[in-house]
């Protein structure tokens, strides 16, 4: 009898363990979401969410929640909303929670923002100026990843009245705003949450910063169109539409899909197969030879533009020279020669499969190939400095003239009897980057410089190249830029500002440790210059310095987000020339979200 009892207890315990074990798979769910989503009410994504969602709090350091919280120059706004949204097509800043444009005061030390009185959170409470001020204060109080930098730009955020917020810029010694561009940028970067909910979050974590930032906030309240409920496990993430969404007041209707769903795929090919099968509607992945999907396989798939480069390229992955290597630091001829010799057309053709404008179409500068940025420098003035690439003869001439020759006859040029030998590094598995580095290495062969590729894991690369004292990588690849209201200034700073020299854990810029006093001056000057001609002159000078000193060189232009859509279920996606001026930011980022309001069913 006793034995029977104990075995019953054992069985019960095992059953309990089983139940607990199953429950420990991170399943989070906020509202009733049907177990089977109706296909014609759901928009499926791929390529944004990798791995399970960690949390839903905008204050978390790493929520790994790509559909709701994503760091980008154009913020992702289906769930949480910002005051303004960015349109990378024309560089315009468009009000979202805000009502009308922001206003600088005459001294350019304060920005006033009106809140849209129609705006309310998913629980129905209106968005007030105090919510905005409290959200900003919370970021600073708990030193979140966003908040640590605020004091550099913003001194205070306060509610003037119920619907008016004032942002006071941090001032320098002469009483001018330290960085007006960054103040504006914060209006587009910070998600707004209700003060009452944040206070609840603080209280339940006993005002402890570490606990507060780890709270997953699954009961969050936000103002976005898809803050109506969610489901997340290790297979998928689903967002439900808030049918009471306030944005009807500005967009004219609710967004078409009732659910946004993102299956979590193990890798790119899996997502690509799902896209081809019509299981995915919007795909944010690099697809090699994407045109084959419609040209060869006749699938109803298209990209923003129907011909190369198929998308809007706003990022410039570049090869950085490490100035901690004295040979690279002291010999501009070597830096320029390698850059001249690289066959960029081969990179475009083989690494990017033509998904990048060429350097003939958009000559190299510090700008991306959008009309707005291209107009910001004087093309004629820097014409003689720009290069197309694959210029082995020119590169050899440059090195010969600089007296860098092969003295010992082994085919490799040398300096002080030491052969020129460098490594070229990018993370393993980043296919198009790896192929680019192979092509850079091939360029070295033609000009008597030994370059070998090295593909360590990303976890290692990210620690080495962000360390300002590293000497392990000679030439390494990184992008880190995009399009936003602080660009192209931000890019100039990223490529040349000496403020980042020697820093460890440096994600901000100048990873090659380049220094030029005049470049620093220009970077200081640009944010407070408003006169367009003066601005253009400064940018042109920055481009001149960049192309003369070659601290790094762009290898390709690349979209910040890839955007390939399948029209099996939904149609009406943003496309070039459709007259709506909606950027191809996957219907989730910045003004790209407006695309959700134009979607229609193929078979209603």
């Amino acid at each position, binding site marked *: 009898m006793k034995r029977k009892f104990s075995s019953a207890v054992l069985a019960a315990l095992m059953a309990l363990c089983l139940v607990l074990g199953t429950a420990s798979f991170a399943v989070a769910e906020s509202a009733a979401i049907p177990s089977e989503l109706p296909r014609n009410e759901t928009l499926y994504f791929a390529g944004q969410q990798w791995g399970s969602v960690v949390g839903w709090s905008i204050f978390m350091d790493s929520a790994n929640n790509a559909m709701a919280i994503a760091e980008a120059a154009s913020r992702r706004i289906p769930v949480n909303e910002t005051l303004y949204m960015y349109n990378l097509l024309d560089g315009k800043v468009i009000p979202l929670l805000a009502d009308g444009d922001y206003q600088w005061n005459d001294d350019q030390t304060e920005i006033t923002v009106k809140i849209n009185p129609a705006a309310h959170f998913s629980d129905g409470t209106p968005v007030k100026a105090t919510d905005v001020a409290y959200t900003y204060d919370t970021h600073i109080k708990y030193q979140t990843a966003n908040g640590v930098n605020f004091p550099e730009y913003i001194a205070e955020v306060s509610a003037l009245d119920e619907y008016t917020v004032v942002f006071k810029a941090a001032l320098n010694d002469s009483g001018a705003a330290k960085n007006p561009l960054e103040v504006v940028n914060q209006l587009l970067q910070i998600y707004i949450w209700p003060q009452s909910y944040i206070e609840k979050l603080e209280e339940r974590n006993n005002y402890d910063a570490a606990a507060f930032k780890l709270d997953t906030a699954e009961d969050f309240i936000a103002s976005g169109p898809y803050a109506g409920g969610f489901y997340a496990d290790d297979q998928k993430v689903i967002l439900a539409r808030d049918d009471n969404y306030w944005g009807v007041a500005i967009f004219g209707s609710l967004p078409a899909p009732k659910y946004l769903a993102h299956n979590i795929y193990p890798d*790119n*090919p899996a997502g*690509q*197969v799902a896209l*081809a099968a019509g299981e995915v509607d919007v795909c944010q992945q690099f*697809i*090699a*030879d994407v045109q*084959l999907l*419609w*040209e*060869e396989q*006749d*699938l*109803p*798939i*298209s990209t923003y533009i*129907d011909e190369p480069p198929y998308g809007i390229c706003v990022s410039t992955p570049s090869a950085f020279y490490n100035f901690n290597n004295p040979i690279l630091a002291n010999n501009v001829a070597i830096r320029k020669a390698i850059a001249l010799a690289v066959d960029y*057309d*081969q990179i475009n*053709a*083989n690494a990017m*499969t*033509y998904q990048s404008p060429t350097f003939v179409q958009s000559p190299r500068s510090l700008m991306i190939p959008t009309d707005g940025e291209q107009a910001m420098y004087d093309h004629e003035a820097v014409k003689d400095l720009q290069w197309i690439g694959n210029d082995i003869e020119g590169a050899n001439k440059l090195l010969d003239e600089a007296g860098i020759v092969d003295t010992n006859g082994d085919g490799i040029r040398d300096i002080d009897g030491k052969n020129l030998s460098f*490594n070229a590094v990018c993370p*393993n*598995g980043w*296919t198009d980057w*790896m*192929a680019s580095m*192979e*092509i850079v*290495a*091939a360029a070295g062969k033609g000009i008597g410089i030994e370059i*070998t*590729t*090295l*593909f*360590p894991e990303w976890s290692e690369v990210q620690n080495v190249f962000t360390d300002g004292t590293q000497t392990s990588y000679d030439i390494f690849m990184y992008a880190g830029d995009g399009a936003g209201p602080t660009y192209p200034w931000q890019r100039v700073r990223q490529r040349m500002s000496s403020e980042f020299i020697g820093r460890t854990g440096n994600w901000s810029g100048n990873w090659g440790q380049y220094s030029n006093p005049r470049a620093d001056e220009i970077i200081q000057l640009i944010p407070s210059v408003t006169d367009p001609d003066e601005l253009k002159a400064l940018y042109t000078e920055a481009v001149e310095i960049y192309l003369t000193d070659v601290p790094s060189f762009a290898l390709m232009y690349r979209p910040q987000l890839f955007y390939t859509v399948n*029209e099996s279920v939904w*149609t*009406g*996606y943003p*496309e070039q020339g459709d007259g709506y001026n909606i950027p191809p930011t996957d219907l989730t980022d910045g003004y790209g979200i407006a695309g959700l309001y134009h979607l229609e069913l*193929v078979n209603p």
Partner: protein
Amino acid sequence: MKTTFRQIFRQANFVIGFSIITLILLVITIYPLFNPGSPLQMIGQGTFFKPGTYVNIYDSLDTSKVYTLRLDDAAANRIGKKLLPADRETMRAWLIAFGLPEESVQIEYTDDLLQLWWNSYDENVRPQGMTSAARKAAARVDAKLAGLYNMESLTITQPDETTGEPAQKMTVSETDYVNVSDIANVRVLPLGTDNFGRDTLKELLAATATSLKIGLLAGCIATLVGLALGLFAGYVGGIVDDIIMFFANLFTVIPGFVLLILISYSIGQESRGATTVAVVIGFTSWVWTTRSVRAQVLSLRNRDHVNLSKLSGHSLIRILVTDILPYIASYVVMALILQICSGILSEAQLSMLGLGPKTTEVPTLGLMMFWGMQYTAHLNGAWWAYFPVIVMIALISFSLNLMNTGLDQVFNPQLRS
């Protein structure tokens, strides 16, 4: 010895396997003589050019010999190549969405269809209920059809050397032909190009050579280590046997491939050349050779001739080499063949995971598969980038295994007929 060889070469299995591997060796030796240059040279700008003959357009225009052929089906062929059945369907879909009655759109009659198309199509019109993909497909068809009926001669111009003005160089009429043998640059790419624009066949043969070398080196190392340890463990016995078998058992329970992955990862890519990878593979796959050699030696150690040798005071090494090794030599050769085969497979597996030899130096079969996968050749229908590699790996492993079976039938007393 002669009899043994005769016996071996009478085995059909062995002969087939031997012929295949010899053929492969011959091809990888001879082909580079006819097609010299680096197999890693990126000749094609673009990914995965399909297999076929590539004729230089520039040279074909420059040829002094132009032939005129009046072929009846030339125009039809030209139209057929441009206006595929799928294009006709695309045209029909657009015309119906545009508002034409369904019965008026006949896609079988090329002339009628084209007339209807050219009369109706306007790229600025967005027919109701048509997806953007379908509209874009129609625009592409329209672009393709432009000038389809225009049989006027083409005029080739070249900037004048002195003035720089375009001057007429030649005209090409639709009945002009050139003989391929007259053209200076014609390149046959029997297996097209890979994602880097490299000649796949040339790369495949160079990769086979490298993989065979890796397999041979790995196999030799594994066999030598396994043989030495097996001989000592089996013959010496006692504590030596215990220690060796302890390690052998230890390595048996750790999956060899996991060990291989861990070691390759920790070596780091910079120092991971083809030789290093071969050595790593060799040193992680000696275990089963040790175990089986030991078992064989155990049955030999108490034979009379061994005891006699021992009584005569011969050294340990001499006994092992002259009294034991010859009896297991045939077995060792067979083990070597299998080890070579598994060495090649291991390299391919490692490279597929991105843990193979570094990519800049030499092509290997595994690296070809790796890059093919990275650039989704299997999803894009670029079979030439990965299928020949699979066939080559299969052929090598098939031929080696066949040779092994043949040898087995000669040397294994239980199978001997």
